[in-house]
């Protein structure tokens, strides 16, 4: 429940003023419909106002409509910091650095895929390792892994795991330049170098979905994004930087705890909100290491796409391009990126933290692939395995949130609670009855991802549109799922 001082700005925007908590440098702003606001855990409001106390924050501390309790920042949290006076915080990025979503088109319809959907899911389950301890097929040295963490998807292009179009249709073209693997610990490399091409577990998944005609919201924009035929089949997957990103975050969280107060005089409110000035040696080291994890995650998703293309090619006996396996887009969720934004009437360079939040550039902005520039950046919002997901587009009015929107449906139920309420085997059976064939590495993990454990994705998307953060293009419904 929102605190009593929370002010309604309009139907989908709420503000907690600076007077709410000592030390707040800016107000907190929460984008949500009233039902979504009421469903938010009280810690969301504590966390979003804690973020508002951090040095150098610009404008507001934001929370997106799918916001829920996180570590340090809420998940769905977003804050921009002045690059000269502001901070960088691992808690504003998340442990799973560049956890993100990728959407891939096919030229196939559901009628063509339906007879082979179980075969496809079974083969994808075998080729894209998921769950505890999953190892990828790439045999890499640690030195090669460090190289790819600096080169991102350019490394995949050189090795034959990507085509140029994949890079063009990925946020930042699949490579953040300011990455320096010498800032990454041995342990981080050891945890990650065998995990390229793996999904992981938790809420990570690979899904076969259908764009039904009745779920197309904007046919013209859907066509621009490559969804141009009735019951077209697409693939969506969600995963991140695996153990590598987690170790980078863990290493620097502990490093920042040592200097935050003693060296830089920044008061503690929450150890998960540890930070350092962006320009400090510690801040710069983390930024360069974090960028390696962003790049590694891009590579991870690219290698998974390579495996998907192999599987479809084998099952249908055709070249992947004949099957229309073109990437639509790849968005990041957990990042801090240096961006130029209009703020208080001037163009300013800001370090934009998005944690469980998606960049959503408006039509005409640089950084969007040329073929999409007129309609805005594609935004991929993943729902639960039962309820479906959305493809949206960026809008100009998202300037208010430094062009940031929601990332998913957001949990309403803890994992343990979900496990008590649902059985993985029952859920698998129910999903099959609904026409969704699922493979999982863990039935208890499956129970945690039941649809009822999540917010209503339609309500999240309605609030997102109403708040002017992005607009829906098509809803995609699942027919096959590999649960990590």
């Amino acid at each position, binding site marked *: 429940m929102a605190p009593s001082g929370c002010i309604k700005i309009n139907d989908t925007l709420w503000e907690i003023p600076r007077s709410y908590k000592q030390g707040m440098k800016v107000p907190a702003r929460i984008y949500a419909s009233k039902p979504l606001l009421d469903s938010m*855990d009280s810690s969301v409001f504590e966390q979003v106002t804690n973020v508002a106390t951090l040095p150098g924050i610009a404008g507001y501390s934001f929370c997106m409509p799918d916001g*829920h*309790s*996180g*570590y*340090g920042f809420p*998940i769905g949290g977003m804050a921009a910091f002045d690059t000269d006076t502001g901070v960088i915080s691992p808690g504003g990025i998340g*442990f*799973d650095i560049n956890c993100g979503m990728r959407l891939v088109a096919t030229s196939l319809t559901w009628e063509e895929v339906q007879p082979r959907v179980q075969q496809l899911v079974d083969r994808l389950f075998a080729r894209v390792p998921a*769950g*505890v*301890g999953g*190892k990828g097929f790439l045999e890499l040295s640690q030195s090669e892994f460090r190289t790819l963490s600096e080169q991102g998807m350019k490394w995949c292009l050189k090795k034959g795991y990507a085509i140029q179009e994949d890079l063009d249709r990925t946020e930042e073209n699949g490579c953040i330049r300011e990455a320096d693997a010498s800032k990454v610990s041995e*342990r981080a490399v*050891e*945890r*990650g170098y*065998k*995990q390229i091409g793996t999904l*992981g*577990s*938790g*809420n990570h998944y690979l899904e076969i979905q259908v764009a039904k005609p009745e779920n197309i919201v904007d046919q013209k924009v859907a066509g621009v994004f490559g969804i141009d035929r009735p019951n077209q089949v697409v693939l969506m997957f969600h995963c991140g930087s*695996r*153990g590598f990103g*987690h*170790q980078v*975050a*863990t290493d620097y*969280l*502990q490093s920042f705890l040592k200097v935050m107060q003693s060296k830089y005089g920044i008061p503690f409110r*929450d*150890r*998960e909100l540890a930070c350092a000035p962006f320009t400090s040696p510690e801040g710069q080291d983390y930024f360069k290491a974090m960028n390696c994890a962003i790049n590694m995650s891009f590579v991870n998703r690219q290698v998974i796409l390579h495996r998907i293309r192999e599987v479809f090619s084998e099952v249908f006996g055709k070249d992947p391009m004949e099957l229309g396996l073109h990437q639509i887009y790849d968005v990041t969720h957990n990042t801090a990126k240096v961006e130029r934004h209009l703020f208080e009437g001037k163009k300013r360079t800001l370090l934009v933290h998005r944690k469980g939040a998606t960049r959503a550039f408006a039509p005409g902005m640089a950084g969007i692939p040329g073929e999409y520039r007129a309609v805005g950046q594609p935004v991929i919002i993943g729902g639960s395995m039962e309820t479906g997901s959305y493809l949206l587009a960026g809008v100009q009015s998202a300037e208010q949130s430094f062009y940031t929107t929601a990332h998913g449906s957001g*949990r309403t*139920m*803890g*994992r*343990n609670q979900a496990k008590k309420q649902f059985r993985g085997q029952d859920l698998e059976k129910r999903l099959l009855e609904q026409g969704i064939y699922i493979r999982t*590495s*863990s039935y*208890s*993990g499956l129970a*945690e991802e039941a649809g009822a454990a999540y917010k209503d994705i339609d309500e999240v998307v309605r609030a997102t549109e109403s708040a002017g953060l992005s607009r829906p293009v098509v809803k995609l419904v699942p027919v096959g799922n590999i649960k*990590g």
Partner: protein
Amino acid sequence: MADVAFEAEGTSLEELFTSAWNATLRVMIENPSALHSNSRKSISIEDRSVDLLLVNFLQELIYYKDAEALLLRLEHCRIKGGTEAAKLEAVASGEQIDVKRHHLGTDVKAVTFHRFSLKQEGELWRTTVVLDV
């Protein structure tokens, strides 16, 4: 809420750390008794406080799971020092993940400081730990 929380207690720090290790292992594997002792690892950690020592001790379990696909049961641990500087020596043994015999649960990715506490109440040491999964 992408997390799992547990509370553990013990009459000594060693007992507390052992309970916390077992709880973390149990999140990843539902039948830890199925783990054979094929590999043995020595763990030696020093830290500036006992709570950081516990966090980094549990990180070892996560590290071996990712780096070597090993799931390890704790054999024994010894802790020297108090709540300020502390040192731990431990031995853990286990085997590589075998999806046929091991009933896997959820992949633990990090030990967090979210709602973290470690304190002595009378005769008992207690901890609350939130794991990122």
